[in-house]
Structures are given as structure tokens and as C-alpha cells.
């Protein structure tokens, strides 16, 4: 006599996005805090010193926010025109800004008035930064020059005029105080050396360069511009390593996470993409409007993003709290010891072992299926769904009942309450492609069984009406999808050269549901 085989619950793969460690890591942020600035947020820079305040440059101000503050703790407002590129020095004590009128101002973080003012650029200074010795400031301007300034004397040390268009990107080397990289709208990225006074490397990005970024090792360089993100190998003399095209609008900013050096890029298409070490997109943040600037705090604690509509969005990392209070409040069940009592006893060598057949415990719905009580089994399965909110077991029971040819019996003779429970279940899961087949079947049978008595119950009628609406919407959607597929097919057919074998698997399209009878 064979034993009863319990219902097999299919382990179906979750569709859509795959959950990897990266997604878990990047998803582990609190919902964003939004702050309104006076104009488009052009630049965000984190102070290297804890508590890692950050400077936000927007319109004619530079605000400094604390890591958790909603209000600026400090602001520099003495600009006559738009300020650009508020950047901290390596010790976090000085801040340099460019401005529309062509002046470069140097601030003490704790003070208000500019310590130094470097004038010499004839047009707006879009990018400024400190060289890594902290004694010199480098700036790039719309007058197509890059200049290096001496902080103690306030004198201009050198001017580089190799670019032929606006200089809009700048990255000083952290390892060598004489090196910095600039990107310009003339589609080139150049590396300059203060000692030689000219560019060492020139890389053709192919689009106006919006942002350049050096990896901490400084062997790799990232440049963004147009829709492209390009990685250059500096040790190989500026050879292009990869070219990424994951955004569909201009990529405006890039930064590196401090954990594992993951590359993040933000774009006007409202997305921030996170790449892994092999430059595959592993995560995607979605924002309301086009992104202009982005910065990430050490240890990835905070992600601050500035947008064109002047909104500064700040996400903080979630930390696991040890919620002891919760566990202590709950009544503790029997301890683990009780359950394993005697189970882990190891017989000695000369013990005579009498093996007892392992008793198989069946789930409640299996017990009911075993005694052919299909209606009750369906009820139990629906209860499981209500408890765990997981449809797998319930669907498995429905499939099993259908296999036994008694699904109609199980669904028949129900009152309003239990029927609406089933209908709710159907409504919730009918569009999950894993479960839509049995759900459509259940819906069909319900409509068949109860079509005479449906008007008697307004609640069931409402549910069925909703079911009909969503199904109608879904079929329309499928129609449109099919149309798009058809368009794409013709496009592909006209684009690709004639090949013998089309090894292309069209994505499976759910058949429109036939439940129009209601």
C-alpha cells in the first residue's frame, strides 16, 4: 500500500528583476528626503571629514547641509550671479566655488566672507577644484581655458589653452598634486601635468564631455557625455576599455561608491544606474525629474541627488536595529530543546536499534484531499493564502483539484462570503503569468456556475464587474503589445541583412483571456 503523495507545490521562478546581492544592497535605503533649492542643483560635494556635511550649489547660493539636517547649517550667499561647483578641499576646511561672472571664490567652511578671490577668466567658471596638495586651485571655464591658482599668493600659476570649447568637467588626481583631467565640449578629455605645462593624454570621447571621474587607483578614467559612459585605461595610454550606453539621454554625472568602487551614473533621463565591476547594470534608481548632480557619502551612507527643478533628494542608508523590545514582549514558545528532545541521540555501538517508521505529517489541505473533501481543501488553501499572502500553495491545490476533475464541485454551492474570497484571490493573481492559467479556469467555472444568482449579491457582482474591467484592460494592452511586436518585427526584418536562420525567440505573449462571458 503506497502512502498518500501530498500536493506538489511548484517552485516557480519569480519573473521580472532578479534579486541579487547588489539589488539588496542598493535597495537598502530609506525613502528619500526632498529639499527644495532655489534653482537647478548643479553640484553636490561631500566633505571628507566626518560627519560628512555636504555642499549643495544651486542658483546663487552654496548651502552646507549636515548629514541628517533638513535645513542648511551654513550658506554662502554673497554671489552676484549663479554660483558653480562648490567643492571641498581634502581636509574639509576650505571650499572653492566658480561663478557665472568669471570669479573664483575661496571660502573658509566656518566663515562667511570669501578668503580669496581669483579673477582672470573671461567667462563663467563652471568647474573648480583643489589639487591634491591643497595649496593650489584648478578651474575650468567657458573661455576654453583651464587655470591653476596659488592659494597663498592668490596668483595665477598657469593657463592651459588646449581645449577648443567650454571646459565643463574636471578631476584632479589624488595621488599626484601636479596632474588633473579635464573634459570639454570639444569632445575631448585631456590630462594635464603642471610640470610640463601641457596635456599628456588626449582621449576622444565623441560627445561633449559632461563629467570626468578618476578611479582611486587612477588607472581608470570615466568620462560621460552624450548618452555614453566611457571607461579609459590610463596605464595603456588612454585606451578605451568599455563604452556603456545604458541611458537614453545625456549622462550628466558620475560617481564611485566608496564600498567596492561601484560606478554610478546619473542622467537627464531621470535614472541613476549602478554598475558592477564588469560594467553590467545591477541596479537602477528612478527619480522624478532629470538629474544634474549626484554625490555619495563615504561608506555609501547617503546618496544625494540634485535635479533640474531644484529638488535635492537625499537617501539615507537603513541600518538594522536590534529590536529586543519586540521579542521580549512576545510570549516565548517552547524552546528548541523541547522539539529536538531525543531526536539527536546517537546510539552506542552495541545498542540494538529498533527503527520506527517515520510518521509522515500531512498538511491540512492534503488530509482533506486524501479523504476527497475538495471543497474543504479549497477553503483551507484559501486560508493559507490569507495567512501568508503567498499564492503558491493555493494555486497548487486548485491545480490538484482540477487534475482530479472535481474543480467544479469544489467551487459549487458557496455562499457570498466564500465566493468573494475566491474572487478576490482570482482578481489578485490573474495577471501573474505563473498563475493566470488556473485563475482563468476558476473564473470561467464561477461564471458558469453562478450566472443565474449573481444579481442577488451586490458584492459578488461588484467583484465580477471589476474582474471584467481589468480583463478588458489587459486584453487591450495585449493588443497594443502585439501591435508593437508587429512593428518591431517589420523594423528588424528591414534592418537585418538576410540571414538563413533566425534564432530569435520572441518573448512569449500571454494569450488574452477568454473571460468575456461575464
Amino acid at each position, binding site marked *: *500500500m*503506497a*502512502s*498518500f*503523495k*501530498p*500536493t*506538489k507545490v*511548484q517552485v*516557480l521562478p519569480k519573473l521580472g528583476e*532578479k534579486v*541579487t546581492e547588489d539589488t539588496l544592497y542598493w535597495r537598502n535605503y530609506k525613502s528619500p528626503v526632498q529639499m527644495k533649492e532655489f534653482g537647478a542643483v548643479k553640484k553636490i560635494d561631500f566633505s571628507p571629514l566626518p560627519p560628512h556635511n555636504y555642499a549643495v550649489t544651486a542658483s546663487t547660493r552654496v548651502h552646507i547641509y549636515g548629514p541628517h539636517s533638513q535645513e542648511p547649517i551654513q550658506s554662502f550667499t554673497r554671489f552676484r550671479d549663479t554660483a558653480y561647483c562648490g567643492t571641498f578641499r581634502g581636509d574639509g576646511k576650505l571650499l572653492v566655488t566658480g561663478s557665472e561672472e568669471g570669479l573664483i571664490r575661496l571660502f573658509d567652511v566656518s566663515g562667511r566672507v570669501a578668503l580669496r578671490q581669483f579673477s582672470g577668466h573671461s567667462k563663467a567658471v563652471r568647474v573648480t577644484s583643489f589639487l591634491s596638495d591643497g595649496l593650489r586651485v584648478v578651474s575650468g571655464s567657458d573661455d576654453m581655458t583651464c587655470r591653476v591658482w596659488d592659494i597663498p599668493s592668490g596668483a595665477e600659476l598657469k593657463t592651459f589653452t588646449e581645449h577648443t570649447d567650454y571646459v565643463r568637467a574636471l578631476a584632479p588626481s589624488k595621488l599626484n598634486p601636479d596632474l588633473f583631467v579635464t573634459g570639454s565640449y570639444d569632445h575631448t578629455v585631456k590630462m594635464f601635468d603642471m610640470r610640463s605645462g601641457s596635456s599628456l593624454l588626449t582621449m576622444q570621447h565623441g560627445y561633449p564631455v559632461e563629467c570626468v571621474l578618476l578611479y582611486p587607483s587612477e588607472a581608470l578614467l570615466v568620462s560621460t557625455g552624450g548618452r555614453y559612459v566611457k571607461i579609459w585605461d590610463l596605464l595603456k595610454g588612454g585606451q578605451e576599455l568599455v563604452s556603456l550606453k545604458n541611458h537614453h539621454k545625456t549622462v550628466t554625472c558620475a560617481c564611485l561608491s566608496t564600498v567596492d568602487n561601484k560606478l554610478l551614473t546619473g542622467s537627464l533621463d531621470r535614472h541613476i544606474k549602478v554598475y558592477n565591476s564588469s560594467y553590467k547594470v545591477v541596479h537602477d534608481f528612478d527619480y522624478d525629474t532629470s538629474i544634474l548632480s549626484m554625490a555619495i557619502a563615504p561608506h555609501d551612507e547617503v546618496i544625494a541627488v540634485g535635479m533640474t527643478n531644484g529638488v535635492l533628494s537625499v537617501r539615507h542608508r537603513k541600518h538594522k536595529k536590534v529590536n529586543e523590545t519586540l521579542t521580549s514582549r512576545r510570549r516565548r514558545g517552547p524552546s528548541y530543546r523541547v522539539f529536538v528532545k531525543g531526536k539527536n541521540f546517537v546510539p552506542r555501538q552495541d545498542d540494538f536499534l529498533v527503527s520506527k517508521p517515520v510518521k509522515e505529517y500531512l498538511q491540512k489541505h492534503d488530509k482533506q*484531499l*486524501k479523504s476527497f473533501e475538495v471543497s474543504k481543501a479549497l477553503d483551507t488553501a484559501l486560508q493559507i493564502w490569507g495567512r501568508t499572502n503567498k499564492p503558491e500553495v493555493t494555486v497548487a491545490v486548485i491545480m*490538484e483539484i482540477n*487534475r*482530479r*476533475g472535481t474543480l467544479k464541485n469544489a467551487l459549487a454551492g458557496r455562499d457570498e462570503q466564500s465566493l468573494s474570497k475566491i474572487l478576490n484571490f482570482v482578481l489578485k493573481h490573474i495577471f501573474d503569468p505563473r498563475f493566470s*492559467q488556473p485563475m482563468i*479556469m476558476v473564473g470561467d467555472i464561477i461564471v458558469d456556475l453562478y450566472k443565474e444568482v449573481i444579481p442577488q449579491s451586490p458584492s459578488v457582482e461588484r467583484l465580477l464587474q471589476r474582474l471584467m474591467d481589468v480583463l478588458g484592460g489587459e486584453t487591450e494592452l495585449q493588443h497594443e503589445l502585439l501591435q508593437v511586436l508587429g512593428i518591431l518585427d517589420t523594423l528588424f526584418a528591414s534592418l537585418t541583412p538576410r540571414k*538563413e*536562420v*533566425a*534564432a530569435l*525567440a520572441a518573448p*512569449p505573449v500571454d494569450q488574452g483571456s477568454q473571460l468575456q462571458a461575464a
Partner: protein
Amino acid sequence: MVEKSDIRVVRCGGSKINLRPSVFSTDSRFVLCASGDSVKVYSTRTEECLHSLQGHTNQVTGITLNPANHLQVYSCSADGTVKLWDFIDGILIKTFIIGYPVFAICVSEKHEGIIFLQLSMATNSKSECLQLVAVHLPKSAEQEVEAKELSAVCSHISSNPSCTALGRGGEFIAFARHLQLNVYFFRKQKTYSFSLQATDKKGAKNAFTCVACHPTDDCIATGHEDGKIRLWRNFNQKKEYTYSTLHWHHNAVNTLCFTPEGTHLLSGGIESVLVQWKYGADNKKELLPRLGGAILHIAASSDGQLFCTSHSDNKLTVIESNFKVCGVIQGLVKGDDVLTDLMIDPRSKALVLNGRPGHLQFYSLLRDKHLYNLDIVQQEYIYEAGLDQFEVVKAVFDIKGSWLATVEERGRKSSDLEFFLKLWAYDEKTQSFVLNTTITAAHTDRIISMCFSSSEETTMLVTTAEDGQFKAWCQGADADTQQDQNFWSCDFVGSYHNLKPTNCSFSADSSLLAVSFQEVITIWSPETWEMLTTLCQPPGEIRDLCFGRLSCSKYLLSTTNRNLCCWNLLTCALEWSTSVEVSKLQPDPLSENVAAFSYQSKHTDLFVFKPSEPRPLFTHKNVCSEKVHRAVFVPQEEPLNNCDESSQWLNRSQLYFLTQNMDLLTFNQATEEDRMLSSSKRLVIDDSVAVTPFYLLLGKHRQQQQNLNTPSYTGADKPQQPQGSATIKELLHTPAHVLPAASVLCSMFVNSLLISKTGVREEMESSEQEMDSEKEEEESEEEMEACDSQQELRAQGSVDEVTPKLSKAQEKELKRVRKTDFSWMAGLIDSKP
């Protein structure tokens, strides 16, 4: 022509054992059942087949114990004879020639010398009606007797033998047909008939399906099509009969059986539940569910301790009276159709095909024994008529036997098709297949064919489906899932002009994959998944596709419904083609040979050929009259060395095939068959361990020694002792795993060698001598010293049994020899690996 007669078609094994109810011997140690054209005797305790009573030339249609001698059994057959056997020794005692095909037999104690047979109505043999005939068995000493005294008892009885039953020790006979129950009283010579309405208001279907009579009471139980059981009483009057109804079954009651005391009634049907009703207390019942296939027959032993149910999946289940299953005798399960191909498990060399619903069965062809079932579907099977459930439709092994791919399918008839592709890995520890991967939506339509790559290093599975695609599956190809790389995932999807693929095949070194798309063969390279070439066929959809092996690996064979074509893959040109309709093309994995079954003008011919030359090596016309769709080459146990050209193809492997009537046939050489027969006879002797002294020895030691460390020294490497006693023979012929420990056997073995020098004269043993020996044993035990170990004592006893006739002096001498220390010998044996 002389050569051709050498090789012939032989039916091999796997016959039905569930056609007729089985019969218990009076001591319920044996159960007998009709199996094809022989009667098989199984032990109820070990489930081993002890004898096969062979002699009939057609299907055995009934067996029953001889009421006069409980060690004899009557068997009747469609060849028109009734035979009387001694089933303990397996000897044919007598043959009664009836002259007409016999369909059932029954006997009773009250009618001595008479057997009741069911013959077809003489006038119109086509009709379903049978007649019951009483036959007086002539008493003569001859082996073959013609029984001429036939007298018809009643006519127009149902062709279902379970609709006829002798009642109350033979006072009356009850037989039912359609809606009528007739009872014929032998003494009164009168028939009473009772009829029922065909249907009633509630929609019951009242047709009779089976009849059983109470052994002591005046009561007849009848089973009906709607699952009701009626108990009829007072049926010896025309008018005042009564009946009561029992209802549990929801489908037709297939069989009914009263226990010998008449305290219980057993019933069974398609639900595969054995129901035991308490006689008298009508609604008290016990159920034993999930026995296997539908219950066809129930038999009870004469002491009422054991029941035996026959199931539709060719199985006998032995059940104790407390409703515990104590034994299962399983034959080769043959459903209506073999959906999977015939396959050979590369490890066990067992024949694999789908058996019980949702299972694959492994069947040893050599021993004609069912090995085990592999549960593929792993779902509760509901025994209900007309229910569409999962069936295993495809299965393939890879070349090493470490992977098995199966496809199970449901809802082929209705529109909503469900199917799963499953991959099973062989587990060395449990010695069976373990589920590795389940692929729920492998294709969008049903899978037509699949094959594993034939290389040893990497395994790859290719499936073709009706959705116009073929897919290649690899182990752990999906890099994104960073789990164990043991799981299978899709590697490549290919299609060709949206045509429906029909078949796929890997070349011998798996460097090429051929996929046929209706009329076109495409050749792919599995490394790069590049299509190398297409071969366009003469018109006709391609059925079979196979690459040549070994020296012919450059050839690709394909069949359509009209042609057999051979392509040369080096030149990509058609090498040769012939116009035959080939229903099955089967390559031999061990040689270049390919077997082709062709169906022409209502019979099937076999051609065996090498792809390199179109001339067949061997032809066999008229193999059978049906189409052959399933065939398989089974590797020979040891290669034969025929140098004869026409029989050379049988050297490495043997060809088995399955006809549409589900007969498993094979090609065999005459000499080969003799060898098989002799080996089977030897096996039979080995199995009858019941009465040998060795068995006694084993039985005594069983309680003492649970953990037998099986000694291997009785292996065949020892030369036979020329003057070996029966014990030595027994010892050497018994498989090592049933022997007790070496320490037990050692002294006995040595002793028996010694004795054989002094007294070899006795070979034969009778039961009387055994009795004597037991007395001697007692004497010797008195003489034994207390220090002797228990084990030695027992060993001694058995030795004495073997050589009972010894003089006292000889015995003394022997004992002296025995007491000498033989422990050095034991040490020697232990040291042996």
C-alpha cells in the same frame, strides 16, 4: 534458407499474470497464477517464482486446485486441453484433451471426477456467449487422455468468468449475464432466474459484473456496474427472493470474494481499494486503499489468513487478513500503449519503459523480473475512469546512464496541455535516480523528441517541440543564478523557417547535431550553434533520423514514409536510397549495424544493414503481422562469436521489439536459446531451497546472526571436488549472500570434506533418513562437551544430517577429528578479501 532458419522470433517474458484469479495452495505457502501459456508458482513469503509449469501451447485461461489432492492443480487453456500438475515439484501429471478452446474452469468437492468448463457455444463461435459444460474425467493411467463425456449444464452465460460461481460446496451454480441472475440447482435440476431493471429513477446501472457465493450460507453476492453490491437470499423460490444492497464503490465492482469461513466479503474495483464487508453486519467495512492498479480479482487462502489481489498493472498483492500488505509480485507492466520508447538503462542493462501510471519501470530481461519503478510524476494517482492525468510520454538516458530526462504530459485530448521536462541525476548512494531539475515551460507546445549528446565529457540535451523550435539544455549554463551549477538551463534556441521540427540526433562523437524540419534535415555544430548545412530530402516528412556508428559515422540515415535515405556528410550528398516504408529505424550502439522494420502488405519485415552499403546483412520476412514502432538493441551479456554472416549482427547485441499487441519479441539463435533454457533450469533448482539441509541450517542461524558478514569463499573459483558430497554442492551453488558467516560454515565445510572420503555412497536423501539423522543429532549432543560453542554444535547437526549412515567407530573417529582445532582455517578464511 538454412542460415535463415537459425535465427527465429521468440516471445520473451513479461506475460500477463493478472488475467485470471490466482490460487493459493492449501498451506498458503504458494500462490499460483496463469501467466501467458504457463502457470507460475510463487512463494508467498519470498515472492520468488519457484516453478513455471510449461506445457500449454496457448493462453492459460484458468487454474484451480484439485479437490481430491491439494498438491495438484488443474489448468485449462485456450489450446483445448486441461492439464493436471503437481505444482510442488513442477511435474505434469495428466493431460485431458477437450478439443475446444476452454475459457474457464471450476471444480467442487461434491462433484468428484467432474470439472466444469466454459466453452464457446459450438454453433456460433464468434458470439460472446459461452456455455458451461460438465466433463467427466476418464480414469486411466495414460499421460494423455481424451475426455469425451461432455454434458452441457447451462448455456448463454457471460464471457466474464467472474460472473459464474459454484455455491455452497457445489449445490448450485449461479451465473449472471447482463441484467439476469440465474441459479441452477444440481439436485433439482432446475433454474431460477431473477432479473433487474436496466436503470431506475436514480440512474443506477444494474448490469451484473460479478458473482460470488457464500461458502456455507444460502447467499449470493453480486456486483453491479454502478458500484452496488447486492446480497441475494431465499433464491430457491421463484417469487419470495430478497436482496439487500451494499454501496461503497463509485465505479463497477470488478470482483467479489467470500472468505472461506464466510465471515467477510471482499470486494474490489477500479478505485484500487480493497473493501472488506463484515457478513451479517452489513455496513461495517474496512478499507485498504492505494494498492496499485484497478483490482481485477481477489483470491483468499483456504485458512483465510491471506488474500491475493490481481491488479490491472500486472501485479499480484498478497495481503494478510489483518489488512497488511505482505508481498507484491510484479510483472512487466504493459499499458495500452508504450508512450516512451523502449530503452536500455546503461548501468543495469534493464529494459526501461513506462509502466504504472506516472512511473518508469525497470525490467530485467535476463531474469524476466521487474526490478523497480521510478516515480516520475510524484503525484497522487486517482483511480477513476475517464480522468486525464499526467503520463510519462518521453524518456531518454544519456550515454553513461548518469542522467535521465523525462517528459510528462497531461491534457492531450483537451486543449489545455500541461507538460513538464524533468532531469534526473543518478545517485550512487541510493543507487537510483534523483530529481535534479524541473522545467515547467520548456516549450510553448508539446515536445516531439529529445536526445542527449553522445560524448562522455559534457552532457547536453536537445528537445524539439511543435512550436517550431528546438532547444539545447546544458548543465549550469545560466551564469546569473549564482547557486550550485548543477541545474540545467537553456543554452540555445534554434528554428528553421518556422517549420515544425520532427526529430533530432547527435552524431557518434557529438560534434554534429542533425535536426529534421519536416522535409529538410539541418546539420548544426553544437559548439558554436552554427548551422552547417541543410540536406533536402526527396518529398515526404522525415520520421526517423540516425547517425551511423564507428566506421560508418560519416553517414546519416533518414526515413520518410516512402524512402530510406543515406547521406554522406563529407560530401553532403545522397549516398543511396531505397523505397521502403520503414516504421522503425534502430541503430545498434555497439556496432555499425542498423535495424529497419518495414511494414508492407500487412506484415512486417526486418532488414539489418550497414550504412556503408545498401545491401542488407540480414533479412527476415514476416516477423509479425502488425506494425513495429518500438525496438531496442540490448547488449549481450557475453559477446557471441558467430562468424556466419547472417547471424554476425547478433554477436554484440540482441534486438528486442514490441508489436502493437504489446508482445515483447526478440530474435534468437537456436543454440542461444538452449543455453538460456538450461540456465533457467539451474536457477529453478537453486530457488527451491525449501527442503534442503542447508535451508535448515540457515533457518536456525537466522535468529543468532543478524549481521551476516557474507563470506565469499564459496565462489566459483574453487574447482569442484570430484567426490563432493551434496552439502558441498549445495554450498558451492548457493549464492554467497544467503550463506551464514564463514566461522559457522568453516568446520562444517571441512568436516564434509573429510566425510566424503569415508562415505561417499550416499547421495540421495529421503525424508525418513532425515528423521534418523535428527535422532542421531540428539545422541551426539549428549556426548558433546560443554565447552563446545553453540555454533559448532549447530554446524555439526547439519553435517550429521548429510551423512546419516555411519558406523559408531567412524563417528568416534570423526569427532576426534572435529575437536582438533580448526581455528587456523578460520583465520585463513578471514584473511581472504
